[in-house]
């Protein structure tokens, strides 16, 4: 099925994926504007992470189309999708324990991504400046020489967000960025997200309602692979269907 062209940054249309007959995402339509902060909530098994997997190419769709700036993503490889401008953060912090914070960020720096490019990559002033700039944003400026394994859980989450920022994606997808964080870390993360979303779109999956209220512009509620409700936080909170399946519990 060929999706239509739109003005949206991301247009997901009729997206379906089934695993052995079980439809984790079923005939889903989702549109994300430029500079939107979209939060996806929903009970466990609603298909939230699967949706992100589909967008970033980790899982292949059974049917439907995902268009990013009107380019079809479902036919691209994972690395092509990254080059197109989509960045994805995983649920558990995925950083490189044996490398320093600096090296972690440097690997995501968008240069030298081919074998030959990596062999001849130079750590020039531009790279160092950019890494330092990002490390400041993610509160890790003093830790550049620390190895990843010595970071706290919250710091690892920030580092992975930083690794995405340095790629400068147009669409950033974050899977539960504040899971396991302390209250003060959550506040800092909300502040961080609000700052970095000024010039890009973000899709966030989150369970923490307080945090969702802090950051969301639009909220999408997923249930059994389908959209249950969509709109502002207030709209969604008062939607009887949502209260029934999710918030009420």
């Amino acid at each position, binding site marked *: 099925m060929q999706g239509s062209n739109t003005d949206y940054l991301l247009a997901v249309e009729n997206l379906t994926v089934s695993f052995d007959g079980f439809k984790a995402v079923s005939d889903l339509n989702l549109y994300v504007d430029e500079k939107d902060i979209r939060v996806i909530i929903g009970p466990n098994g609603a298909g939230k992470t699967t949706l992100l997997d589909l967008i970033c190419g980790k899982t292949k769709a059974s049917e439907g189309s995902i268009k990013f700036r009107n380019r079809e993503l479902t036919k691209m490889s994972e690395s092509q999708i990254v080059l197109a401008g989509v960045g994805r953060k995983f649920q558990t912090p995925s950083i490189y324990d044996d490398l320093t914070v600096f090296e972690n960020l440097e690997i995501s720096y968008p240069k030298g991504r081919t074998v030959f490019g990596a062999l001849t990559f*130079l750590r020039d002033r531009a790279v160092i400046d950019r890494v330092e700039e990002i490390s400041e944003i993610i509160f890790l400026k003093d830790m550049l020489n620390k190895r990843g394994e010595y970071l706290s859980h919250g710091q690892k989450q920030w580092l992975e967000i930083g690794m995405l920022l340095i790629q400068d994606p147009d669409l950033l997808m974050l899977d539960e960025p504040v899971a396991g964080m302390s209250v003060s870390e959550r506040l800092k993360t909300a502040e961080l997200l609000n700052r970095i979303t000024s010039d890009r779109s973000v899709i966030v999956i989150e369970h923490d309602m307080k945090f969702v209220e802090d950051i969301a512009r639009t909220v999408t509620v997923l249930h059994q692979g389908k959209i249950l409700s969509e709109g502002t936080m207030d709209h969604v909170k008062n939607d009887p269907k949502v209260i029934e399946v999710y918030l009420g519990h």
Partner: protein
Amino acid sequence: MPNGTTFLTRSGWLNLAILAIFLLVVLPLVVDPFRLNLVGKYLTYAFVALGLVMCWGYGGILSLGQGCFFGLGGYCMAMYLKLEASSIENTKIQSTPGIPDFMDWNQITALPAFWVPFKSFPLTIIAILILPTILAFVIGAAMFKRRVGGVYFAIITQAISSILTILIVGQQGYTGGVNGITDLRTLNGWDIRSDHAHTILYFVCVILLIACLLLAQYVTCSKLGRILVAMREKEDRVRFSGYSVANFKIFIFCLAAVFAAIGGAMFTLQVGFMSPTFVGIVPSIEMVIYAAVGGRFSLFGAIYGTLLVNFAKTSFSESFPELWLFGLGALFIGVVMLFPNGLAGIYRSTLDPYVKRLLGSTPRPKSADPSVSQPAE
């Protein structure tokens, strides 16, 4: 520094100097020519171990089939030397003079087409470098593009080295079979069997080994080396950072294969024959043990590990030949359980801090410190 990470730190240069002096000065002075030739033979395995450090230590790709590439390099060289030894005069008693003796015994009457390129020395050198690369590329592309990794990859590489052995043994008329290619005499007219030739070949071997070590050092401290480490830890994160992970794996696997083939060619030259015993599963696993004992994250460690295990093997198997394989197995288990970072790990935790203090550089973490390395102007 051009790569961001220092190519060799001060203690790295010291290690290099110690290794070079040990191999190029000390050993030739204190060891008799027979033993020196033996060391030269051991060092040919160190090429394989260097490749394994890059592939397995850095990239997390365990190949149990490096003997296959070692054998390819060795056989290419052996085929060239054999053709030179099978001149018409040398083989005039055969029913078909001018072809290798084992072909004649197997009623083959003309040189097979795939042997013809090995009449030329330049083509032989090219074959030594290219054939293993092609094989490694095909294996790598078939496996890594399909995301086969870990234990499955190890088993498949092991199967491939086993297949190659069976092929060589089975095609006796074309390959010399289980005896291998023997009775190699001269290289471009130069007798390689004399003590003098052994000594010269030893030095050639050491210099090539150090060149490979420096190349491996360059690769591992470039950004590519860090990507390998990153892939080993979080392959998905690298993939979703815009890298085609398979290409990096194929590259490092091919490079390790070329190193192994150079080692194999030097083996043939120094030992004077090549046989399927150096191709199969047992030698392939032994080579992994060399890298493990030396420390699979350390290029220098790989060389010392290879030497140490082989010295032990020679002295041990002279007195208790039947016990050696058990000893080797025990050594492997012991190293993995007690010293997972091998000799290099022991060095790093005991001597290295003192060496660094002596050299006046402050101890720093294993990974490079970006604030110390200066950007290239």
